[in-house]
Structures are given as structure tokens and as C-alpha cells.
């Protein structure tokens, strides 16, 4: 279901919910289309008329500034009409009211939903329930997937490293709660990298994490050896109160990325972070702002990748 749900009968993108089930060719196509938009966004006139007359609704059931902004900008640069809604998840907003929200917006002739929700599977649920002409883009669901973030990370990696096949990537931090990490791991493995490693204490790793196709390390000094790409994840403060970690400083001591630690990786290794950064908790400022950091490239690339995905999901309607 999840595989087919995302693609139409001709194998074209209809919804973008998860990296799982998408072939390598499609991921590469997304990166190529995004490439064509990157040049464009540097120009004086930043708009193309690809989605003129289309209505896109950003449905954010969870707070977000960056992701929502880049989705808004991406839609506007494709000339679509955009409406952004922040819907605080109240105790009553369970299945029915989520569905009612969708039904009401459908009745207003919307063409695409961009959804962020705190529960895993919410975007799949909306894609299943919504009218057949509407596309759903997952902007992050619970701990499940954040596929547009993963694709902009792939784009950034390809920009610098050109080819995926010989790369070793280390993802460091709270894998357990990270939808970004899950999508990154799937994308990296689909694109055929040499190795994906996850580095974290056992409390921040899901059970059977190896089943995702990764090698596991609990030690940064060992895990960073020979690595081409270092991806740091954000550490939420709640992890201390839920007995997953004893303290921020102990975490930084073990898993924080410092200049010294970064030297263990390859000399030309790049440092990535999906943001927002906790300086001094998972990463030192000197590294975050240093020459190997590509964190701001990630943000700029976010617009192009989201333009590409939105345009391709609309392609099924024969407008691109």
C-alpha cells in the first residue's frame, strides 16, 4: 500500500510521503529537477508559472518555522496560491477532526496538501482519505518520515561529493525519535552509498536499528573514522526528563561534534545538520560555522528540492 500509494499507474509521483518504496531513478530525477531550479532562484525574477492557478495548503499540526517557510516560498516561486494553516493539536483533534479539516479544505478545491503532524502515519492517512485529484506532501509525521528534508540533504551531498557510491556517512544523535534520520537512511541506501553508520547511546537508538541497513557505534571516536559526511541531529531537551540521558554536558562530552573530533573523519568531510542547531549541545559553534559546515547550503537547497517535488507531484495532472 505505502509503495503504490505514492505513485500513479504510470509510476509517476502522486504523493510524497516516504522515501520507502521509491526507486533510485525517481530520487535521482528529483535531484535533477531541483538542480534546474537552483540556478533560477539566483535570478532577479524568481518565479516560474508551472503551478499557476493551483492552490496549495500547508497544514501544520506541529510548529515549524523553517520547513513551513521554505514550502511557502517554493510554492510561490512555482506561481501557486498558498495558504498556510497552523493548527494546534488540541486534545479533541483526533482522527475525526483531522478528517473533517481535510474534508472542509477539499470542498474549497485545493490541489495539494503539505502536511506536518506529530503522529507517525498521519500523512499516509490523509493521502488515503483525500479526494483522488489531491496530492499530499509529507512535511514530517511523528517519528516516521521527513522525506523532503532527506532529499535536500541528498541534494547537498551530491552538490559537493558528486557521486554517492563510495561515500561513508555517519548520523549522530537521537535516531530513536528522528524522522529525519529514518528518511535519510532510506535515501542514502537507495542511492547506493558504501556505508551508513549511526552513532548514539543505546537509549537513543530504536530496537533492531540494523534492520534499517546501518552499522551501529556507541563511540564517536570510532564511528567517525573514514567518514565523508557527518550528519548531526538535534537533541531535544525532553530527553533528559524522560530518563534517556543524564545531562546535556555528558552528552556533549560523548557525542558533541568538536573540531578535534571532526579531525577523526576524512579531511574533506562535510558537516550537516537539519536544524535548528543546539550550539554547545550536539555541535560546537566553531564546527557549525566552520569551513566544513554546509548547514546553510542545506537551507537554501530546501527551496529548490521542494519546488521539484511539488512540481513533479502535480505532473500527474499533466500540467508540467
Amino acid at each position, binding site marked *: 500500500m505505502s509503495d503504490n500509494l505514492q505513485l500513479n499507474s504510470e509510476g509517476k509521483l502522486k504523493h510524497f510521503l516516504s522515501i520507502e518504496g521509491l526507486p533510485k531513478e525517481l530520487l535521482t530525477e528529483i535531484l535533477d529537477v531541483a538542480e534546474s531550479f537552483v540556478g533560477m532562484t539566483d535570478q532577479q525574477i524568481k518565479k516560474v508559472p508551472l503551478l499557476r492557478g493551483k492552490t496549495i495548503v500547508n497544514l501544520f499540526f506541529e510548529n515549524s518555522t523553517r520547513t513551513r517557510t521554505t514550502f511557502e516560498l517554493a510554492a510561490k516561486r512555482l506561481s501557486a496560491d498558498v495558504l498556510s494553516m497552523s493548527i494546534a493539536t488540541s486534545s479533541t483533534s483526533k482522527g*475525526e477532526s483531522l478528517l473533517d479539516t481535510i474534508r472542509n479544505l477539499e470542498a474549497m478545491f485545493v490541489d495539494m496538501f503539505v502536511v506536518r503532524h506529530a503522529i507517525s*502515519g498521519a500523512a499516509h492517512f490523509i493521502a488515503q482519505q483525500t479526494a483522488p485529484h489531491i496530492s499530499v506532501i509529507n512535511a514530517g509525521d511523528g517519528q*516516521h518520515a521527513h522525506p523532503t528534508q532527506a532529499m535536500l540533504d541528498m541534494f547537498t551531498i551530491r552538490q559537493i561529493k558528486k557521486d554517492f557510491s563510495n561515500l561513508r556517512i555517519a548520523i549522530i544523535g537521537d535516531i530513536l525519535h528522528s524522522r529525519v534520520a529514518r528518511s535519510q537512511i532510506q535515501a542514502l541506501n537507495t542511492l547506493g552509498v558504501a556505508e551508513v553508520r549511526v552513532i548514539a547511546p543505546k537509549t537513543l537508538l530504536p530496537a533492531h536499528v540494523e534492520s534499517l541497513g546501518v552499522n551501529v557505534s556507541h563511540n564517536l571516536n570510532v564511528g567517525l573514522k573514514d567518514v565523508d559526511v557527518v550528519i548531526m541531529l538535534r537533541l531535544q531537551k525532553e530527553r533528559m526528563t524522560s530518563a534517556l540521558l543524564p545531562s546535556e554536558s555528558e552528552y556533549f562530552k560523548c557525542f558533541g561534534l568538536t573540531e578535534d573530533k571532526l579531525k577523526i573523519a576524512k579531511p574533506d568531510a562535510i558537516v550537516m545538520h537539519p536544524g535548528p542547531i543546539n550550539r554547545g549541545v550536539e555541535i560546537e559553534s566553531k564546527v557549525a560555522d566552520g569551513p566544513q559546515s554546509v548547514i546553510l547550503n542545506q537551507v537554501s537547497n530546501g527551496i529548490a528540492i521542494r519546488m521539484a517535488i511539488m512540481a513533479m507531484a502535480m505532473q500527474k495532472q499533466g500540467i508540467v
Partner: protein
Amino acid sequence: MTQILIKNGQLIDPVNKINRAGSIYIVEGKIVSVTNEPIGFKPDTIIDAQNKLVCPGFIDLSTRLREPGHSRKATFKSETAAAASAGVTTLCLQPDTHPVIDTPAVAELIKELAKKADYPQIYPIAALTRQLEGTELSTMLTLKQAGCIAVGNANHPVRNLLILRRAMEYAVSHDLLFMFRPNDYWLGNNGCAHEGAFATRYGLPSIPEAAETIALAQCLELVELTGCRVHFGQLSCRRSVIKIYQAKKYGLQVSADVAIHQLHLTENNITPFDSNYHVLPPLRTEEDKQYMRQGLASGTINSICSDHQPHDIDAKLGAFPETEPGMSSLETLLPLMLKLVAESVITMEQGIASLTANPARVLRIESGALTVGFNADVCIFDPELEWQVNTENWKSQGMNTPYWGQTFKGRVTHTLQAGKLIHSLENGSH
């Protein structure tokens, strides 16, 4: 005097070691003979069971009929019709109704509802603790006198081991069976899927095996301390089977059941985010399933229950973790048991015993056998008859089953409860 003859069928009764062609003679709701025709027997009704198997009616150790309190999901009328069409003649009702079964008034209301639905053989399980809150003991003796067959705390946690110990001691004092689904609330961590590859991939809050096995191990220690008779319900994993096996070998008076779907489905069968697969305990691994199957075959697990939990559409309409757990599973009970026989996991006799004689022994009731003098609770089924799970055939108000649309082999054609025909495929049922 109402007299019924069931003839030409293949009788199977594990208790009386019967597996032969024969007839059952029923007078005034009781079995009067399974061998020779009694003198002066003149049947009002003759049921021809040619090419069919005739066995005791099934006894289900864990069901929810949703009344009182949740009639939006299902009613006694709809669910007893489902039970009858599934060959089930005796039901145990979990105490998490609304209001909770913790006063004699609620137990009596259930008896009343059962009578109104023309399906009297429903046994309420009394709440172990008041309001199922896990802090104060319920009035177990009064509840027993009001017709409750056992005590249990459904899926609700007992606050601490001291309270559990005292509840078990109090149950022993009144010779009450404690029906316990082991689950450590804290280790369960509000999960909705087994802590394994599936939950990891889809980012679902997960429940480790240890949530079940630690609670099970603690309770086994308390069995030894208190002497309480405990039946462990709806077990789901490998280490639980091992623990029950060891406890029995050691001499503890315990028994256990498994929900029928745990013998067939694993986390690998879950269609991603399909809420019909959201059950508690969660669907576990292939290895767990194999152990549950072996446990059943070896007798470590002596009963199969349906763990029937019908839901309305809204309860299952949402993102997986937000939906309510449970499956509507009475009507797939027999075909799924027959599938175990077809796959040579158990023999037909074992399968029938796990639905009849064994649960009767757990509950200490005179049922589950074709014994002369017993109530004529009889299930007649055609093991070859194919049917599809669809609105035409389905009786339960809950359509929450992952088997929707599938074709099964094996269907109940007649059900008699205390000599009364409560289901007949030819005439429609009930």
C-alpha cells in the same frame, strides 16, 4: 418435551474420546445420549449433519461485546449473533465495560442484557480492583454471588505488587479464578506496535516483549506466594511460553491462552499504517508466532480465545498510533483454527479441545463436552465450506478485521445453546 436429533455427523469430543460417526439425542436442552436412541425418543427437530463435524459449542475466554457503555461500537444483539454464527456458546466478558463490572448491579445488568439477546451463557469477569483503577479491592465475593466467573483487571495496571498480592490472596479466599493479561504499563510506554523492525522502520511507539514477560514472571512469583489460581490471557511471545512451561513443570497451578490472530499474524503481515492490525498485545515476530504455535501443540498454552473487540469505523479511522486497538474476531475463530489443523500445527482434536474442553476446565464449568446430562451446547460445521468475509456473511457490528474480503474454508452451519438452535445457516440465524 422438546426433542432434537442430530444425525449422520462425525462426532468429535476430546473429553469423552469420541471421534466417530454418530448421533446426538437431546431432550429438554440436555444431552441424553450419544450412542443408542433412548426409548420413546421422538424428535421434533432433526438436523442432518451429513459430511459435517459435530463438536461441543465453543467457549471463548475473552470477549468484549461493548455493552453496557459503548453501544455505538456493538451491542449484545449484534455480537451474540456473531458468536452464534461462529459456533460459540459460552462467552467470558472482560470487565472494562462502562460502567465497569465492579458492582453486582452491573453484573446483573449483563445477565439481563444476555437474556434479552436470547443468549444466556455469558459470564462476566469481575473487576479485580474498584473501577479497574488498581488501588482498592473490588467486592469479589459479592460479584461472584452475582454471577461473575472470575476476576481480572482487563488491560488496566495494578498500582503496585503489594496490591496485586493482596488482590490475589483475597481471590484465593473466595476460590476465584484470576484471569490476567500480563503487561507492565511502564515498559509498555504507550506503544502501539511490537518493538522490532516494523516499529523501527515506521517510527511507531513500541512495546518490548519484556513488558509482557516481566509482568508474567512477577505474577508467577505471586502465584507461589499466594496460591491463587491464575489463567494468563492473550500471551504473545516466545519467552512467555517458556515461562509458562517452566512454571507448570515446577508444579504451579496455572493455565494460559492465546488470541487466535497471534497464531497467524506477525509484524511482517502488517500493511503499513493499516489500523486493523493495531492490537494489544501487538503482533510480534515470526519466532514468537512459532513458539505460540508450539506452545499450543504441546499443551503449555491450553486454550485459544477470540479476544473479540469490535469497533465502530471512527475508532479505526486515523493515523495508526491514534486508533483504538483490537480486532473483531469471533467469526474468523473457527476457520483460523482449522487453518492450524490444515498446516499440521495441531490435530483436529487438539484444536477443538482448545476451544471447548480446555477453557471449560479453566472456568470449572460443566460444558465443553458431549457428556450425557450436560447442556446441549453443540457446534456443527462444514470443514470444506468456503465463505468470504463480506457484509453479507458478517454478523458483528465491528468490521475491524484485517481479513476483510478474504475467503476462508470451514463454516459453522448450526449452533445449539442449551438445546436451542441459535444459528442455522439454512434459515439465517438467531
